């Protein structure tokens, strides 16, 4: 009878609960509780700390902030983002790679006739055994070393399917393995999310956050503590310039939604400057939106500074005592340098913001304590983004950066309170991340991620600086590098690629060029480890199935932009799907065959790793390992000085710049960086001071011609605003069926395909005969992507918005149906000496796809249109794998 009852009342069947952060691409994230039953995940919901601890036990762990008569208390429930709460759909996605897959028309051995490089992204896959897959990898590794030398294998990694993992995280395992063999060429993660600050602001205020990101953070620790509290207490006005905290922060948690509501309730004013009426300004009636044309912020910023200079609305004393070189910036702003005063009228012609609005904002800003919030949205991702990074620093410097209420709020300082733990990811992530950290270690031969395609196609590239995204100072940008490396460093062309992050084409610059490179016959073997059959994996010869974070045991807590850090030890919530293994397990398995397994696992099993991590953690005097394991999570106590007002953000420098210098050559904020002109004389794109740089024809020495004033705008008259998607993290989560039925995520075209929305203003749509839902092509010289029109008042005219990171769905070379906008972003770097990426603020045209054109494509590329397609998920395993 009891069995029968079980069947008729499944609602009563017991469930098991695990706790972990699920942040698709980062550390930690607000903690989710994952309930499972019979080896199947039932639900994912926010963790409530009080389910295992009393309020008395939690009292030293939860902060409270009081300002203007109102108190904000740290919630006792975590705030994981919708990506995490829908993660069941990723675990059970129809797009999961379940078994090792081999491309049908590729064979190992390097015979050009059997590689069929030209068919990558076109031909399908078939299932093979793990034994065969590993045999292929091992034989190809040996062949590469024997034929081309120790650096002929390029490892692409980091920042891909990280999923908050620690021990099992990919991104450096392949490097660790090959490092114990004969070597590898390292793909360098060029700075993303911080481009303009990394390449620009670092020359103004030093290395900044994490010793290299270029966000404001003072030495000696280069961390910006207490900024949320400083803003809460003292800031009157918050400027969101390229900041959409209701979107970009949601990769790890939604605690900023709670804090922003509190800030509005205590009377703070917000101005959002963005080409797109972003998800933050759209839902808060109290905020003001100032639409601006993409990538014109440097002109806008100069007009703001012009008003301050001419009306005395800046901190003259601070500029005198804390900065150098202001006179050069003033001379440029006032027109003494080039005869053109940078008035609001001048800027308006470029940026599209009316001069009266620029003036009004400049005065509001100059008269009130104002902070800038910034988080990985559009404006630092365009051509010449170093200029915008620098003008943002100039604005803050003119208003006395570091004084109470005048701070830069950035992705390195969104935590409201400091806890004792202070390490990302878990109770002690550093030792667990030993394999991932491999990607920060310079090798004999490196290639920047932005230049992979060029390295493969041109076989010869030169660049400056950027050995990694963090722990790198400004002077590094003067060091010249080459690929191939010189002979004494075993420089060689790469002929095998191994990716633990197969999304370069969707996340980085000019994805179509990357696809070209993958189709180059010099790439004899391309293997990826990935959970889902998507993007770069479609161009692989071998794809290895990887577990998602919910199929692994690990030690993962929350951290990195959460209300409160939490430590967790969790068991897997379900068995690995298909034959998937973690990147760590794959590395160990191959390492075992080569006799180097202990170089990866250090001779420890999982339990020993977790125990070791705990033993050296900063919470081992607060809780026992056994209790942590039994309860599954622990909320560490706040640091004793968590609410100290001593030095929030840049305060110490503000109070005494001599005693607390920055790590710039002068120790001060440098409006003018003479070292840039010394090292790169004649560089008109990144000179000693920031300017409005429009660029121009290549024949005149410009890297970009991507403004509405330029020649190319005649053919491509719209500026692309490729803001972060509300529904994805980078290229992840594009297969979640519950997101794809929301029209801000996908729009169903008349042919039944779920197209990526192209947000276009009614005026621009009408001029092109486009209506809501029409299939449109977005294109420039680099290629064509298909989207569906989302006609809206939420985007600036002369600009369209296509969020980055949609899955590519190749129809033919340089023609894609998935709407992955980075495919058509520029190949060229930020500027000639700054090899970061340009993935927004470039020129395109948008037009309606007529039926005849679509029919012609179907005739020309029948295989692409014949592939199986599931509108709910998009491309699936069945799309690409032969029976």
């Amino acid at each position: 009878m009891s069995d029968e009852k079980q069947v008729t009342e499944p609602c009563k069947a017991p469930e098991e609960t695990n706790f972990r952060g699920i942040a698709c691409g980062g550390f930690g994230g607000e903690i989710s509780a994952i309930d499972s039953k019979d080896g199947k995940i039932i639900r994912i919901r926010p963790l409530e700390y009080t389910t295992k601890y009393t309020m008395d036990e939690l009292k030293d762990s939860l902060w409270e902030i009081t300002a203007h008569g109102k108190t904000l208390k740290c919630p006792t429930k975590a705030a994981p983002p919708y990506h995490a709460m829908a993660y069941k759909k990723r675990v059970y996605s129809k797009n999961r790679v379940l078994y090792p897959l081999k491309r049908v028309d590729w064979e190992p051995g390097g015979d050009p006739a059997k590689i069929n490089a030209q068919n990558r992204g076109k031909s399908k896959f078939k299932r093979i055994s793990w034994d065969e897959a590993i045999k292929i990898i091992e034989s190809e590794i040996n062949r590469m070393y024997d034929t081309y030398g120790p650096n002929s294998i390029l490892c692409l990694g980091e920042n891909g399917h990280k999923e908050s993992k620690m021990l099992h995280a990919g991104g450096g395992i392949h490097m660790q393995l090959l490092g114990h063999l004969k070597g590898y060429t390292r793909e360098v993660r060029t700075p993303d999310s911080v481009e303009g600050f990394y390449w620009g602001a670092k020359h103004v205020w030093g290395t900044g956050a994490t010793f290299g990101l270029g966000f404001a953070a003072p030495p000696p620790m280069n961390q910006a503590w207490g900024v949320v509290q400083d803003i809460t207490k003292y800031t009157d006005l918050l400027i969101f310039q390229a900041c959409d905290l209701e979107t970009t922060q949601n990769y790890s948690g939604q605690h900023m939604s709670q804090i922003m509501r509190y800030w509005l309730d205590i009377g703070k004013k917000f101005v959002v400057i963005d080409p797109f009426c972003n998800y933050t300004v759209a839902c808060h009636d109290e905020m003001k939106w100032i639409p601006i044309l993409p990538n014109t912020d440097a002109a806008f910023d100069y007009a703001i500074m012009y008003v301050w200079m001419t009306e005395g609305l800046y901190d003259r004393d601070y500029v005198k005592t804390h900065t150098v070189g202001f006179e050069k910036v003033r001379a440029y702003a006032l027109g003494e340098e080039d005869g053109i005063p940078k008035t609001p009228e001048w800027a308006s012609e470029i940026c599209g913001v009316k001069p009266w609005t620029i003036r009004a904002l400049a005065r509001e800003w100059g008269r009130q304590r104002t902070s800038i919030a910034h988080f990985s949205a559009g404006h630092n991702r365009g051509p010449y983004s170093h200029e915008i990074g620098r003008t943002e620093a100039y604005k803050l410097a003119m208003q006395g950066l570091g004084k109470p209420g005048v701070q830069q709020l950035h992705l390195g300082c969104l935590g409201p309170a400091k806890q004792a733990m202070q390490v990302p990811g878990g109770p002690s992530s550093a030792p667990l991340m030993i394999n991932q950290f491999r990607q920060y270690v310079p090798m004999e031969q490196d290639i920047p991620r932005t230049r992979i395609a060029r390295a493969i196609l041109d076989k010869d590239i030169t660049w400056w600086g950027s050995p990694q995204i963090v722990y790198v100072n400004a002077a590094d940008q003067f060091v010249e590098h080459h690929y191939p490396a010189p002979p004494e460093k075993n420089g060689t062309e790469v002929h095998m690629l191994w990716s633990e992050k197969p999304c370069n084409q969707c996340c980085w610059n000019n994805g179509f060029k990357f696809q070209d490179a993958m189709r180059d016959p010099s790439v004899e073997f391309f293997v990826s480890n990935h959970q889902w059959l998507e993007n770069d994996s479609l161009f692989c010869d071998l794809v290895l199935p990887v577990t998602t974070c919910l199929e692994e045991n690990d030690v993962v807590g929350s951290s990195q932009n959460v209300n409160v850090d939490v430590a967790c030890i969790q068991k897997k919530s379900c068995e690995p799907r298909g034959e998937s293994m973690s990147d760590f397990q794959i590395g160990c398995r191959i390492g075992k065959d080569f006799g180097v397994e202990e170089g990866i696992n250090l001779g420890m099993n999982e339990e020993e790793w977790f125990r070791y991590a705990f033993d050296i953690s900063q919470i081992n005097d607060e809780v026992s390992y056994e209790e942590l394991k039994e309860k599954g999570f622990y909320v560490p106590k706040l640091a004793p000085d968590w609410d100290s007002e001593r030095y929030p953000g840049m305060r110490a420098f503000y109070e005494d710049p001599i005693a607390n210098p920055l790590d710039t050559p002068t120790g001060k904020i440098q409006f003018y960086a003479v070292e840039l002109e010394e090292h790169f004389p004649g560089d008109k794109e990144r000179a000693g001071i920031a300017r409005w740089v429009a660029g121009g024809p290549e024949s005149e020495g410009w890297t970009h011609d991507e403004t509405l004033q330029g020649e190319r705008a005649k053919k491509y008259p719209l500026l692309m605003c490729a803001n972060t998607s509300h529904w994805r993290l980078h290229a992840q989560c594009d297969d979640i069926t519950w997101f794809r039925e929301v029209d801000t995520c996908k729009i169903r075209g008349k042919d039944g395909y779920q197209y990526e929305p192209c947000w276009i203003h009614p005026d621009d749509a009408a001029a092109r005969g486009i209506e809501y839902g029409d299939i449109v092509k977005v294109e420039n010289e680099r290629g064509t992507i298909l989207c569906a029109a989302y006609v809206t008042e939420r985007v600036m005219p002369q600009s369209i918005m296509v969020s980055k990171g949609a899955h590519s769905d190749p129809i033919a070379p340089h023609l894609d149906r998935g709407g992955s906008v980075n495919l058509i972003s520029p190949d060229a770097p930020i500027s000639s000496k700054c090899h970061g990426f340009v993935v927004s603020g470039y020129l395109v045209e948008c037009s309606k796809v007529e039926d005849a054109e679509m029919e012609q494509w179907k005739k020309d590329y029948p295989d692409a249109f014949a592939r199986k397609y599931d509108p709910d998920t998009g491309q699936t395993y069945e799309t690409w794998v032969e029976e």
Partner: protein
Amino acid sequence: MKTFVVDLKKCVGCHNCQVACKDEHCGNDWMPYAKPQPDTGQFWLKLEQEERGQIPQVRVSYMAKMCQQCSNASCMAACPNGAIIRREDGLIWIDPAKCQGCRKCVAACPYDCIFFNDELNLAQKCTGCAHLLDRGWPISEPRCVNNCHVGALQFGEEEDLDLEGAVKLHTEYGTQPNVWYKNLPKKFVAGTVYDPTKNEVVIGAICTLDGPAGNFVEETDHFGDFWFNDLPDGEFTLTIRSAGKIKEMPVSTMDKDIGLGDIPLT
């Protein structure tokens, strides 16, 4: 009686509520309370979105909509099999074991909150996550409410809820709905006033909106902006006055919110 309160002012449009409903009910069988919800296309809770105004005066309103738990439920009246009942706690429940798939309740619901599951031949809707309420673990409230990080969704005994200013949707349908809504959007008229001879915004301009539906006054702020919020539908005359200059124009909120953009005061 248990019910929901939805506060649109607190909602940030994240869709966690809609995701929660899917996560709880798609692919999960909660018999005897509910059979699974289809994976896509049906929304026992739907976050509706409305874009309002014109650039740059644009706002987006989000509104969570689910079964309105009506006291005079037309679905109950329409069901010939007695499959729809009111639970003791007040929630309206379709008993999956009794539903015969006649679809009459689907047509009867004026709020479009009942869906027909073709595969299971079953009418389905929000259950208030009654299986969770009754068993009390791992949570004892509806998933949509549990997933909301900003307090935009509340659930509980009606007398315990803060209902100040709350209203119900479409009471004219006559079904006596029981779900409460706060801060439902009314129309707005907004603009930026500037002086074209100086290229300056006009601060402190007195703006009046006059019409049969009412008379309203606002003053432009430091950005030269005026926002008339919570307006009734109607035909109005907008008058802007500053330093002896006057501008008049007709505006209508009958069909939509009005963002007038930049208005020169000459």
